[in-house]
């Protein structure tokens, strides 16, 4: 079960490593966003508190150094000015043993100043981070570089590192090495990828009606695990009275028998789909700058990453067991972008290697685009075999079976998790009385695939939506009406037997779309367009999906402090990969406290005020029950920037910190001020409640009380020794943890967090002052904690945001080219923190989805990106002219109230457009496609 921890991060091994070998490290490892005074101007907030633009906007629009890639050693405070430059030589075949490098092409002048090969790494005890610091054994593979006499695990695997002290020589050598064949190969061995990565199966048989108890479901049973016998998956035996896994397989057998014996009254639709391998093509290629200060054993690094906590801790673990002395890891990060591919990528560890062999100088390792294609994490290719059973008379879905085979390439990374998440999403927006979904995460010699926007759900849900469209055609019914008839409604169980958190509103989106003029008028529009544009075929397609956000382990920390002058400061672990999360977290504070923080730091890894550990991990309920007795234990300390998690999960920590500061600090301070004078002052006769607290123009008022400025409140809070700083840690496993804290000055309080630290104003008691030992905070040992049950891991999902997309397109019958004329999307995502950021995400997601549907494609193996010849000249990204810039429209469903949580929506927005395009192409030319991308050539072939 622990293996299902999607991006959860187990610190057990590192904690052990730290205490034994380098016990300083929880304090010493740190990661900060590089401070940028030019970016710290408050102008992004208008005087009235309104958001004018992103807090990083000015820096980004003026070309300031913002990305990790922009930094050189001389830009790093305290680093030497002189640096070196490194490049990797990568394997372009994976069927023979590596023999040697022949760098004669470089001539005598351009030989590297330092050449590092795999044998040296082995000798020095350097291997990819593994053990308890990674999600699962072998997560990053077994070797960093291909060793002499060994066969590469995967295409693109590095075989050697070249370091140059001089930029001009480096730049010339890099150009000369591009496309050059400098690797000498030995014996042809055939491919030697790792063993396949994992298989799982989610089987559910519902009761007689959606309201009846499930006969079998993963939530009360289990996700059955399969193992591989060669390329074949072996599932547990089917036993109706056996283990949970055996009962799952027995239930699957029941479903299979039902499908096989389906009467002619049922439509049994069996289809095979393919979703291609894709390069996320984040515009900043992977890069890092690392300085190993050998005398002091300090590893300084500036790394482009979505997961700084993981990089800091795993790099620590990697180096701590090597021959290199390590006393401190000093990690800096910049703004970045990755769409998931800079989350748990192996690249930062190659940067660390470069630094370790830099002979005292900082070393920069920065991919060019060819190298990025060759090594960047890919979106998994999926082969999908689906069966959908629909009762013809009632047009209700009876059962669905799906087998999802994905190719993870030559490193495990998140392949099983991607398969798992794709599997649990496959039902789409429908209620399925019976479902049998399974994934097989396979290894190959392809470039490794990992966490990429969509995380498996793009692949499985797109197939479902193409299939439902075909089912509607075969049944002769309106495709949206069929969807509405089968839509998953609030309270209905998903394919794991779990009920979604909050109201499901897919039916509302469907109802809106059903009456949209593009849908109601599609027959007439088609006729009119084709009459007017001879040689073109016109089509309208629709699809709808909802996608989970978050993972089975979401840990977040926010610290808010109020200084004596009334200035607010925020510390946050999240970092900005373009989504605007730094801006939106500040706006969450503003929502509760009437103003955005005056100072803020993001990307924090070092948390002295939150001395928690998530080691060891809890794999079973018993383990969790025992471990949670320790008030300094949490199931997950921090999560990377991933799975659309900033708005809901990180936002939760930020909101709770802000609320706690209001309730424990600002409000008591205000009451004290208002209560001055006889009879309880102005407060006494009215006695408003804290729920009446409102901020007006940055002043706190309630029930007619005099509005109080922050400086006044802060002065009082500090003088009275009230709570002036709050740090909260939150944990979510498809449900937030809660805990009871005896809050000094307040009393026992139940909060939706699992750890709390407080800072008191100067006027506090000597005892409380003495208690502030955790980075100047008083860590409050919780009295009782309520963690979500471990079985929640099997729920797969309880948080959904949904989107429906209508696409209008024209197909040129002479060229096969598809021209997207317009599209309209309706999203449900709760309350939007910053609507402009949401709309940008929608539009960007739609563009990426258009790329997936029509343009982007990578062969997996020898002809693919691992061969080092791929770039954007042959890998076509959507341009402005491809996305219907001027005609696209979007709408967001109004929230049910202003208390709807903001929901993660960065991934879901790119998905529905993919099957919508496929369905529109079918409407246009009357042929169905079962593989993406749908190319002009395929369309031409279909037309002839």
């Amino acid at each position, binding site marked *: 079960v622990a293996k299902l921890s999607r991006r959860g991060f187990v610190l057990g091994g590192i904690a052990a490593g730290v205490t034994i070998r380098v016990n300083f490290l929880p304090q010493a490892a740190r990661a900060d966003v590089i401070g940028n005074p030019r970016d710290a101007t408050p102008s992004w907030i208008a005087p009235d508190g309104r958001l004018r633009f992103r807090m990083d906007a000015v820096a980004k629009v*003026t070309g300031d150094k913002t990305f990790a*890639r*922009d930094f050189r050693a001389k830009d790093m405070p305290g680093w030497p000015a002189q640096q070196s430059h490194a490049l990797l030589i990568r394997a372009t075949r994976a069927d023979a043993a590596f023999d040697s490098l022949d760098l004669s092409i470089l001539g005598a002048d351009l030989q590297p100043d330092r050449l590092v090969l795999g044998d040296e790494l082995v000798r020095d005890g350097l291997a990819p981070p593994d053990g308890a610091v990674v999600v699962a054994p072998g997560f990053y593979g077994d070797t960093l570089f291909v060793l002499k006499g060994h066969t590469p695990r995967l295409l693109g695997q590095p075989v050697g590192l070249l370091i140059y002290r001089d930029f*001009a020589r480096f730049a010339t050598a890099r150009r000369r090495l591009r496309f050059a064949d400098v690797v000498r190969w030995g014996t042809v061995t055939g491919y030697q990828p790792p063993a396949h990565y994992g298989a799982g199966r989610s089987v559910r048989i519902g009761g007689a009606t959606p309201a009846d108890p499930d006969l079998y479901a993963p939530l009360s049973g289990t996700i059955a695990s399969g193992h591989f016998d060669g390329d074949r998956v072996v599932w547990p035996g089917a036993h109706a009275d056996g283990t949970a896994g055996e009962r799952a397989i027995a239930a699957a057998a029941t479903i299979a028998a039902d499908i096989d014996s389906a009467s002619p009254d049922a439509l049994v639709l069996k289809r095979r789909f393919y979703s291609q391998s894709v390069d996320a093509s984040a*515009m900043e290629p992977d890069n890092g700058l690392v300085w190993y200060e050998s005398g002091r054993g300090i590893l300084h690094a500036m790394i482009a990453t979505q997961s700084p906590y993981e990089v800091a801790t795993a790099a620590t673990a990697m180096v701590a067991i090597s021959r290199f002395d390590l006393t401190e890891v000093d990690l800096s990060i910049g703004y970045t972008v990755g769409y998931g591919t800079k989350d748990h990528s192996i690249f930062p560890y190659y940067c660390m290697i470069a630094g370790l062999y830099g002979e005292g100088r900082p070393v920069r390792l920065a991919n060019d685009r060819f190298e990025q294609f060759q090594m960047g994490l890919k979106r998994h290719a999926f082969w999908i075999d689906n069966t959908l059973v629909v009762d013809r008379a009632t047009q209700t879905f009876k059962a669905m079976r799906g087998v999802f085979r994905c190719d993870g390439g030559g490193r495990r990374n998140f392949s099983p998790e991607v398969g798992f998440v794709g599997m649990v999403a496959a039902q789409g927006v429908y209620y399925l009385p019976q479902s049998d979904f399974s994934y097989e995460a396979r290894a190959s010699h392809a470039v490794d695939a990992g966490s990429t926007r969509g995380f498996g759900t793009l692949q499985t849900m797109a197939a479902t939506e193409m299939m439902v469209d075909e089912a509607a055609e075969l049944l002769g019914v309106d495709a949206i009406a069929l969807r509405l008839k089968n839509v998953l409604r609030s309270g209905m169980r998903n394919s794991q037997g779990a009920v979604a958190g909050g109201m499901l509103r897919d039916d509302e989106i469907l109802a809106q779309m059903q009456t949209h003029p593009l849908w109601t008028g599609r027959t007439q529009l088609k006729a009119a367009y084709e009459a007017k544009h001879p040689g073109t075929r016109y089509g309208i397609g629709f699809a709808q999906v909802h996608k989970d956000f978050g993972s089975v382990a979401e840990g977040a920390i926010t610290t808010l402090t109020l200084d004596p002058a009334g200035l607010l400061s925020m510390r946050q672990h999240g970092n900005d990969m373009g989504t605007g999360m730094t801006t939106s977290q500040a706006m969450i504070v503003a929502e509760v406290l009437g103003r955005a923080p005056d100072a803020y730091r993001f990307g924090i890894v070092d948390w002295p005020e939150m001395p928690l550990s998530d080691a060891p991990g809890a794999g079973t309920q018993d383990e969790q029950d025992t471990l949670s007795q320790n008030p300094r234990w949490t199931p997950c300390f921090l999560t990377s920037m991933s799975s659309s998690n900033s708005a809901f999960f990180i936002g939760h920590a930020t909101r709770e910190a802000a609320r706690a500061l209001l309730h424990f600090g600002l409000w008591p301070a205000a009451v004290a001020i208002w209560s001055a004078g006889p009879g309880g002052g102005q407060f006494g006769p009215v006695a408003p409640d804290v729920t009446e607290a409102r901020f007006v123009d940055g002043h706190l008022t309630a029930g007619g009380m005099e509005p109080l400025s922050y400086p006044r409140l802060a002065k009082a809070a500090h003088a009275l020794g009230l709570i002036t700083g709050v740090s909260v840690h939150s944990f979510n496993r498809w449900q937030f943890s809660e805990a009871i804290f005896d809050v000094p000055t307040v009393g026992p309080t139940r909060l939706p967090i699992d750890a709390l630290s407080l800072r008191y104003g100067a006027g506090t008691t000597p005892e409380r002052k003495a208690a502030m030992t955790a980075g100047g905070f008083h860590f409050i040992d919780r009295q009782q904690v309520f963690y979500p049950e471990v079985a929640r891991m099997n729920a797969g999902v309880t948080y959904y945001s949904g989107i429906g997309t209508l696409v209008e397109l024209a197909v040129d019958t002479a060229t096969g080219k598809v021209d997207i004329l317009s599209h309209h999307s309706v999203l449900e995502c709760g309350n939007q923190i910053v609507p402009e950021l949401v709309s940008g995400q929608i539009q960007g997601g739609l563009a990426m989805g258009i790329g997936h549907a029509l343009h982007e494609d990578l062969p997996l193996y020898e002809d693919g990106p691992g061969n080092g010849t791929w770039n954007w000249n042959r890998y076509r990204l959507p341009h402005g002219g491809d996305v219907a810039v001027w005609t696209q429209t979007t709408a967001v469903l109004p929230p049910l109230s202003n208390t709807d949580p903001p929901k993660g929506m960065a991934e879901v927005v790119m998905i529905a457009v993919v099957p919508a395009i496929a369905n529109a192409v079918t409407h246009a030319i009357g042929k169905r496609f079962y593989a993406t991308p749908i190319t002009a050539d395929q369309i031409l072939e279909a037309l002839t």
Partner: protein
Amino acid sequence: VTIPHQPMSLAVNGEAVGPVDVPTDMMMIDFLHDYLGLTGSRFGCGQGICHACTIILDDPAEGAVEMRTCITAAHFFAGKKVRTIEGHATRDAAGNVVKLTPVQQAFIENFAFQCGYCTPGFVTGTQVLLERLRRAPVPRADVEKTIEQALAPHICRCTGYVRYYEAVRSVILNTPGLVRG
């Protein structure tokens, strides 16, 4: 070292640079990044596809010309005047931004970008377009088509172009003298 070098001088953002010894085959983007420390023009593809790396060449005859620095040798710019993204906004003596250009202001107010890696290229491409329209205004009805053509090669992976294009349209329509009719 036998890498052929030649001294070169040029004007960058109004300031004289050089003479500097630069390898004859070095691309302009490497010169900007690793010799001058001007990293705002971004490396995207190295093939002239994505246009994240563009700068303005102020040509005496043609006016502002958008140039791809990843496929143009540094020495091409010897003796010429260029504007990089760092030179668009008005800055004080300490380098702090005092005033943005209308294009930059429109981009930030319209939340045109997310990660911002492509932004310098979009600012550059749009600035060149505006200066061209100042010399040769287009009919109001052709504004959208003009924007599409001018920015067509620029790749943005985050925001899907809409907010960029809308911002450019608003700058063009709100700047006197750029459109006819």
